[in-house]
């Protein structure tokens, strides 16, 4: 009988989240940096509700100074528009929440492995585990709050 301390489930989820991450990262990079119009009708919303927040002039100037005058300085604006989209907002919020959970589990399971590689004292291991999953939980709450409230 596998004990309740078994890491089998986490190991298995690590494979699943790894596979998910490949596709989610590609999707994320594509809509974030290459084609902002994927599953989005926000142009109309912006016309109706006015401009959503954008980068400050200083930030934009910094990006252009670093990457050239042609650099596009729109990510924040684009993200906010997408998450306020009247048709697809739920889809993108769902995508981002899943992305958040998948990335946090994958990353923090990996971090736990690294920690237990070097911390061999049982109490130290429990503390490292509790601490790292607590950080993950805090990041999850901040992430969920950001994604759910953004644009709404």
């Amino acid at each position: 009988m596998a004990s309740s301390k078994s890491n089998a489930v986490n190991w298995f989820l690590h494979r699943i989240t790894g596979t998910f991450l490949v596709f989610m990262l590609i999707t994320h990079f594509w809509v974030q940096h290459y084609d902002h119009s994927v599953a989005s009708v926000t142009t109309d919303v912006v016309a109706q509700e006015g401009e959503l927040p954008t980068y400050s002039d200083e930030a934009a100037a910094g990006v252009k100074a670093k990457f050239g005058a042609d650099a596009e300085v729109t990510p924040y604006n684009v993200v906010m528009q997408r998450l306020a989209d009247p048709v697809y907002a739920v889809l993108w919020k769902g995508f981002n929440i899943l992305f958040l959970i998948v990335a946090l589990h994958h990353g923090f399971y990996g971090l736990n492995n690294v920690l237990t590689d070097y911390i061999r004292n049982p109490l130290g291991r429990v503390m490292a585990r509790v601490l790292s999953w607590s950080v993950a939980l805090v990041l999850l709450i901040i992430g969920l709050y950001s994604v759910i409230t953004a644009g709404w």
Partner: protein
Amino acid sequence: MDLTVKIKRYNPEKDDAPHWESYEVPADPLDSALALLLHVKWHIDGTLSLRKSCAHGICGSDAMQINGENKLACSVLVKDLVDDSGETVTFAPLPSAPVIKDLVIDQSRFFEKYRSVKPWLINDTPEPERERPQSPEEHEIIEDATKCIMCGACTHACPSTWADPDYLGPAAMLKAYRYTFDTRDDGTEERLDIVDSPDGLWKCYTIFNCNQACPKEIDITRWLSALKRRAVTSSASTAA
């Protein structure tokens, strides 16, 4: 050809720390690496300590680090060592193991881990009149794993072992695979309980150093992955 043989020497009664010593050794390209060490021991410095027994890759006594890689000294030829690294061949004890003297490591921890996975047939059903049969197809599943000679090259090549000396390591877990997947064995659950632990199966990050080090070319990582999948399905069926 004449070779420079560099050996990491350590005598705990005299030395504060291990140090390298060089010896000039005449060699034939078709000599084994073990022959170089025996030349040093028999003709240059009799105080050199090393383990060897059969000298034919069966007993697994002479696993050591040769030119930076874990190998069996008897199973590697001089011509395959000097091609890559010039005319110097280096010998060191298996990394991460406590050294008793020179190339002799303390294997007690290694065999303790081996015994911990219950490397024997567990079957409490009444003994049949003749034998417990196993078909060729059933044997095929564990055939590769049965080739293990317990030399320790894999476990001492594993970065997870280097980081965590308590990690069971590939050799012990390969034995766990070998018996768990033996169709005559009934000890799956009690063996999984041992390998599915904080210092067990999940510290295998499929780095493949074990595969690279194995002198018997066993596909160790593959069998450990099969054992992981078995642990997952077992844990899922327990939960259900």
